[in-house]
């Protein structure tokens, strides 16, 4: 129905995914380490112990290296909405642009201003003002997360807006509905707490390496105490907020939840797949089993999705083809109404162009009947509404398994720290050394779940990605894709080398 160059769409998606995934290597560490720095420095200011100052300055050095490359990879994301997703920018800029501007005004300036004091102000401002500045960097980084996650949540669950047929775009009607959308709240709490968790793992990883090597033992032990407490609290909170995020997904994005679980046929009292291997040949609507192997926990998916263990959870087939028994409207029916809406909108625009007011009024009346399904009118087949199920399923399960492992790890570190034996537990320390890398995997898979699970939509149910792109020759996007791939890879290698060198040098005098 819509003549779109799919290779352009896919290259545009690939470029956004590439830049976002690189950016998200660094951002969660900034989010969490900024708070850990503030805690370390608070202890220094409270105790006056110079060793805490040396410890703070050591972690601050690593923070700065990470922060710089986080900033570098971040700028392209904001402007990429315009360069590669210009139809999206025009259609929803009224709503989506506002959080980005607010992020700039209130969060980035806070970070940028106090960052300079935090690094270069040790001998230029008072001890108290320096500590205040370090806390402001932490607050600024979390404030930044609020606004970008509000923007992202709106893409998952568009609220507080209406479609204006005159301009053919979505316009904001309720700022507070956008800000306090339940998806925004769960996204913010889940993403920031996962950042706190990752930063705690980062500290545990490097400290464990020092303990294994017998270097900077006192600093490592002190760091582990703070990071393990912070990490344990964060990891438990990540679990709660993750559960809340899944519940919100079930209510607002049931297709995504079905993909999490590889659930094709909806069930009452649906079970949660603890582990499984998916059948790669499985297609929506066919009779093949979705799994080659699965371990299911009965009733738990219904409990997670609806807070009732016997409730009905729609599967992919129900959502695509409909299930009248359970009152689920399928994509098939939504597409019919969506196509009418697309045609009526075109009639409206044409009538306006011809200054035919009666024709415009009639077309608008017809359009209003089906306008909520407008986005479905751009799909070519009902199956197009299904995200890549295997990718989402495996990503979700890797994230959840790792999410269950981290609190256990922090508990073990705290247990042996309290026993005074953390430096001697040779079986635990190598696991601690690897934990940051496992944390990175959990971070990346989490965003794969959120973003790949939303496909094919840029704005859930309203705007497919293929309608959102800039009209560009694909060669342009291919060129910039490889330009960013090469540059970011180069900078990442440089960042890792610098980090390793700084870790090898270690803190001074402790």
């Amino acid at each position, binding site marked *: 129905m819509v003549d779109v160059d799919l290779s352009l769409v896919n290259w545009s998606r690939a470029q956004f995914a590439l830049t976002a995934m690189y950016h998200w290597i660094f951002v969660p560490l900034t989010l969490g380490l900024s708070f850990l720095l503030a805690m370390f420095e608070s202890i220094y200011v409270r105790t006056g112990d110079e060793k805490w100052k040396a410890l703070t300055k050591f972690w601050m050095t690593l923070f700065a290296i990470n922060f710089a490359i986080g900033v570098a990879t971040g700028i392209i994301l*904001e402007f990429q909405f315009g360069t590669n997703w210009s139809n999206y920018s*025009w259609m929803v800029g009224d709503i989506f642009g506002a959080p980005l501007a607010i992020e700039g005004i209130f969060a980035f300036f806070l970070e940028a201003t106090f960052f300079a004091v935090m690094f270069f102000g040790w001998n230029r401002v008072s001890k108290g003002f320096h500590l205040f500045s370090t806390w402001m960097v932490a607050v600024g980084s979390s404030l930044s997360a609020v606004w970008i996650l509000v923007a992202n949540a709106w893409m998952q669950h568009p609220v507080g807006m209406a479609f204006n047929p005159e301009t053919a775009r979505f316009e904001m009607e309720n700022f507070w509905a956008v800000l306090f959308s339940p998806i925004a709240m769960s996204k913010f709490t889940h993403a920031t707490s996962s950042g706190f968790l990752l930063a705690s793992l980062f500290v545990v990883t490097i400290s464990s390496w020092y303990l294994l090597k017998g270097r900077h033992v006192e600093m490592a032990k002190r760091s582990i105490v703070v990071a393990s407490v912070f990490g344990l609290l964060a990891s438990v909170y990540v679990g709660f907020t993750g559960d809340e995020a899944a519940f919100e997904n079930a209510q607002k994005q049931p297709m995504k939840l079905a993909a999490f679980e590889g659930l094709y046929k909806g069930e009452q009292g649906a079970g949660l797949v603890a582990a499984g291997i998916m059948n790669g040949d499985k297609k929506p609507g066919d009779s093949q089993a979705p799994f080659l192997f699965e371990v299911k926990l009965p009733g738990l998916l219904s409990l997670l999705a609806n807070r009732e263990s016997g409730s009905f959870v729609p599967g992919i087939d129900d959502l695509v083809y409909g299930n009248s028994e359970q009152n689920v409207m399928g994509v098939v029916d939504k597409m019919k109404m969506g196509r009418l809406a697309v045609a009526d909108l075109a009639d409206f625009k044409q009538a306006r162009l011809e200054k035919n007011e009666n024709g415009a009024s009639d077309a608008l009346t017809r359009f209003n009947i089906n306008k909520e399904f407008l986005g479905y009118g751009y799909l070519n087949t009902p199956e197009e509404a299904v995200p890549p199920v295997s990718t989402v399923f495996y990503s979700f399960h890797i994230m959840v398994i790792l999410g269950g492992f981290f609190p256990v790890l922090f508990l073990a570190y705290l247990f042996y720290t309290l026993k005074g034996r953390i430096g001697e537990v040779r079986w635990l320390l190598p696991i601690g050394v690897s934990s940051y890398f496992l944390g990175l995997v959990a971070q990346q898979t989490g965003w794969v779940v959120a973003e790949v699970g939303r496909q094919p939509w840029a704005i859930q149910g309203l705007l497919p990605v293929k309608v959102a792109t800039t009209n560009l020759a694909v060669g342009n996007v291919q060129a910039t894709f490889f330009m960013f791939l090469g540059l970011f890879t180069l900078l990442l290698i440089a960042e890792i080398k610098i980090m390793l060198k700084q870790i090898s040098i270690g803190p001074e005098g402790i």
Partner: protein
Amino acid sequence: MISNLDYGTLQQLWWIICSLVGSLFLFLTFVQGGNTLLWQVAKNDVESALVMNSLGRKWEITFTTLVLFGGALFAAFPKFYATSFGGAYWVWMLILFTFIVQAVSFEFRKKPGNLLGARVYESFLLINGTVGVLLIGAAVGTFFTGSNFILNAYNQVSWTHPLRGLEAAFSLFNLSLGLFLVFNARVLGAMYLLNNIDFSAMDGFEARIRKAAWVNFLCSLPFLLYVLASLLLRQGFGVDEAGVVSMVANKYLLNLLAMPLVLGLLLLGLVLVILGVLATAFKGSSRGIWLAGPGTVLVGLALFFTAGFNSTPFYPSVADLQSSLTIFNASSSRYTLTAMTYVALGIPFVLAYVVYVWRQMDSQKLAAHEVANDEAY
């Protein structure tokens, strides 16, 4: 009170706010300009370290202002954001590329194991301060020379030039504006360094920076004069009450005459820049930045106001005049502009703490002994 403002007033208010952020960015390009002076003014490691550390404490403010400029345009004028960024793809991508490499360069340059070596990171800073600023100037120049785009009934952009925005850099006007901004950034960079560094027992270093301020000002003059003359004489883009865009002789001269306040801003801005340079070059002043910086802001405001007010499409299309963007047809809805205006009430507070912290940090000038440790850039 804000909720009672009519739509047209809000649209104009947001053009003023975006213009202010854009103009502040032009002032803050002293970081970019300062980067490009490194080879000229610093003759040993201590001098290099002083230049890098002085600028390195401000680069994020400049970077953040650029990000805010983008965010404010996205929120207030999304049709411009979509049309210009999506259409003039390559000019924006190259600008962004130069800012990406800048962002890591201060931090990575002196760190052991940095893979590329200090010289490469210094080259990144040079590229940012020359190519990056030049292309920004070329992009702003298209506000007066026009761009090659057509918008369809759904406001989707088609760019009609194969260079996708880079063609802007081949217009003499745009190129001149870009080169003026490059040299002006270098003038501002030199003045900032004079204001920020403790030159005790480094007279030669200080003299080289003073000379750089003067020489770069002289270099900027031909481009400035060409831009001003061309602006006043050239045919411009006008829009009538029915929204029809047409070419108007001496449009920008007419705009300045119709808006004496804007003409005043332009003249006052130029005078302040000149006074700042003269005070720096001939009076031994280290406070020239506080004349030339605000002067640059006023010149920037005058340019943006001339481009957008008095029935002028601020982003004109030469491919299809009727696709041109005005502040009235490119803006967000009244609701969004109202909500964002409430948000903008926080801007003075943000500016106040930025200034307060800046003053706290700069109350003592940067001395050589402070850049001799491992934490320094």
